[in-house]
């Protein structure tokens, strides 16, 4: 049987409190974000509570992302926008911070060094 590369994407949602005590949903990515990650990534996004308005993307355990993965993040941001959700991001390596900035993604999600800073960045 031909060898198939393993799907190496995991994602889940945690509920945390912002510095003002307001609820924040954190979508945590682990492993790869590529074209094969769609079901896992959007499956996790569907777990975000409907009432959530403050959403954080945690990339601190993301190992590899290609341009198809960046496109998935764009689609997630589109979905968040449609639901009137604000998105902050943290945990990107310096390289992927540069890539996000090159493609303009930082216009739609600010990039932060850690979760506390990301959670504190939401405008009330």
């Amino acid at each position, binding site marked *: 049987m031909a060898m198939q590369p393993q799907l190496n994407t995991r994602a889940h949602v945690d509920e945390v409190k912002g510095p003002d005590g307001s609820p924040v949903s954190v979508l945590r990515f682990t492993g790869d974000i*590529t074209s094969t990650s769609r079901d896992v990534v959007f499956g996790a996004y569907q777990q975000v509570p409907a009432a959530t308005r403050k959403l954080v993307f945690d990339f601190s355990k993301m190992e590899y992302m*290609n*341009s198809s993965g960046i496109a998935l993040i764009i689609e997630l941001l*589109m979905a968040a926008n449609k639901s009137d959700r604000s998105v902050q991001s943290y945990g990107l390596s310096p*390289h992927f911070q540069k890539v996000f900035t090159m*493609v303009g993604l930082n216009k739609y999600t600010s990039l932060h060094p850690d979760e506390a800073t990301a959670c504190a960045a939401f405008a009330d």
Partner: protein
Amino acid sequence: MVQDITSAVELRLPSKLGFEKVAMQTASGVARLMGFPDDRIEDLKTAVAEACINAIEHGNRFDERLSIGIVLSMEDGKLEVKILDSGSGLHKKIHPPDIDRKMHGEEQARGMGMFLMQALVDEAEWTQTPHGGNCVRLMIRLDKEEE
């Protein structure tokens, strides 16, 4: 650090997504041997990955009977990576992604690979091979870090 050498490393990879990581790790290893700094190695890895993915998807159209070729050549402080497939040519115009149009659904979310390749390395060139396949040539220079 290896300096002033003329040498090449060659790979053949299956036309399956995921195998671009093998090319990335090989390019990373060679660049590290040559003394490239970490940030330039990360740039090269992403550019090589995008070139391999294009070769697999658009060049060889996921045809598992076809492989993609990777040739890494080291010479005088330059690392050149050629990615070869059996496709008939991908002649898309390269333009910076318009994130506003993408976010408003006016252009596809995908389609940033060639832009990233061109933006992340010192030279990127798309040509046809004498046998009719595609060749992407990526090159990084050691002296770029001093600019």
